[in-house]
């Protein structure tokens, strides 16, 4: 620095390059500052100007209106992050604001209520805007903190209930200066570059201050404009954030969000078994009733044809043959139904395990068919409906 200063002291600069030089030094300084708002104004509907001050000093601040996460008012306590810069036109130094948050529960509660009323009036929370969730998503984007319990809860539930899912984790900061931008960028990124069937946005519980990002206007509007359905699991039951109100489905907790996201595969398999039973029963019933009516016809014909002369004996026989063929045809259909249902049951090895049977394999997963296939001391894996048992063989007995 000193060398640079020495070098510069002899140099005559234009004003423009002097400002450029000063800004080169100032703009890398990213400062976090807490203070009170004064002189707030919006110009041309695009630019926001205000001062941040304490008892002794103040700094001019500048930001774009679309970056303003809530309504600012003079006297509000805020925490902001920004870098100083000399404005070439005025020669004044002002802070360019990168992010801004409210300080203090009272102010937060007020801002929350105001924003909620405003968005409600716009109809953003209306149920007519809610998108339907896919019944069985194949891909899910999870937007949450990488280190929080929320992520572990979600992954555990998805693992227990489903299989073969593609899960995309987008790590974000769930609170602090970067949270709003992180959440918005993540939602936009998924919509644009990694369109999954569903998005889960989650974080654990916290104070109104902790949950601030989830109550911010840019986040609410980004969720609203997502083409992909969004489930939120933010905080715990009593915390209702604005992101919850705009989401397509609001879950009480991150765990609950995962439960809503995917159906329970075991439950569906059970339903499918029930459905197969109904299918079989319905068709068998139909076949049996046809068979029964053929029986009645046969019986009636026998009675009708018993008495008359021998001349119609031939006709009698032919009629009976026809009926017998029809009966055979019907029974063939019946056994087809039985056997195809049985073979479908047979191809589902899970069913066997569910009934209490198990499958024994060697260490390589090869099924053990006979005691002759195994040796003393060999490892054996027993597969049950809910897991595997590993054991060592110490005795075999031929039956």
């Amino acid at each position: 620095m000193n060398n640079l200063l020495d070098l510069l002291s002899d140099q005559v600069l234009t004003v423009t390059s002097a400002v450029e030089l000063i800004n080169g030094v100032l703009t890398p300084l990213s400062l976090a500052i807490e203070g009170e708002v004064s002189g707030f104004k919006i110009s041309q509907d695009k630019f926001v100007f205000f001062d941040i001050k304490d008892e002794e000093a103040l700094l001019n601040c500048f930001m774009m209106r679309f970056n303003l996460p809530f309504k600012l008012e003079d006297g509000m306590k805020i925490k902001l992050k920004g870098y100083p810069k000399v404005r070439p036109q005025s020669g004044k130094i002002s802070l360019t604001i990168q992010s801004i948050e409210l300080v203090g529960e009272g102010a937060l509660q007020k801002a929350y209520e105001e924003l909620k009323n405003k968005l409600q009036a716009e109809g953003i929370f209306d149920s007519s805007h809610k998108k339907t969730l896919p019944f069985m998503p194949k891909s899910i984007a999870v937007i949450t903190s990488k280190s929080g319990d929320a992520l572990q809860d979600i992954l555990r539930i998805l693992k227990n209930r489903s299989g073969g899912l593609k899960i995309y984790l987008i790590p974000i900061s769930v609170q602090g200066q970067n949270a709003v931008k992180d959440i918005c960028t993540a939602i936009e990124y998924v919509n644009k570059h990694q369109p999954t069937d569903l998005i889960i946005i989650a974080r654990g519980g916290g104070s109104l201050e902790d949950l601030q990002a989830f109550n911010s206007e840019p986040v609410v509007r980004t969720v609203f404009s997502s083409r992909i359905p969004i489930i939120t699991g933010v905080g715990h039951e009593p915390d209702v954030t604005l992101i919850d109100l705009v989401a397509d489905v609001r879950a009480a907790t991150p765990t609950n969000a995962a439960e809503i996201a995917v159906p329970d595969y075991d439950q569906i398999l059970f339903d499918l078994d029930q459905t197969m039973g109904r299918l079989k029963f319905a068709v068998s019933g139909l076949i049996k009733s046809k068979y029964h009516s053929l029986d009645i016809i046969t019986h009636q014909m026998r009675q009708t044809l018993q008495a008359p002369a021998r001349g119609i004996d031939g006709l009698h026989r032919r009629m009976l043959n026809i009926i017998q063929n029809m009966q055979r045809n019907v029974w063939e259909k019946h056994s087809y139904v039985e056997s195809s249902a049985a073979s479908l049951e047979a191809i589902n090895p899970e069913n066997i395990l569910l009934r209490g049977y198990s499958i024994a394999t060697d260490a390589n997963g090869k099924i053990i068919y006979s005691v002759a296939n195994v040796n003393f001391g060999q490892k054996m894996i027993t597969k049950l409906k809910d897991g595997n048992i590993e054991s060592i063989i110490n005795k075999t007995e031929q039956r």
Partner: protein
Amino acid sequence: MKDFESEYKELQGIVEKLEKGEVNLDASIDQFKKGMEILKSLRSQLKKVENELKELDVKLVDDEL
């Protein structure tokens, strides 16, 4: 391939139609065959294979003012 939900609904439709007995015998066998095929396809989609987890590095570029 049709998605799980529409196949599942189709299967429910077949079962309900058969239960009401609205179809004749030959058609009901066809419907039964179709139902069995759908069942097989649905089951194959429910295989409990591992979920695949991928972390996306979303570059958070500062908005230039």
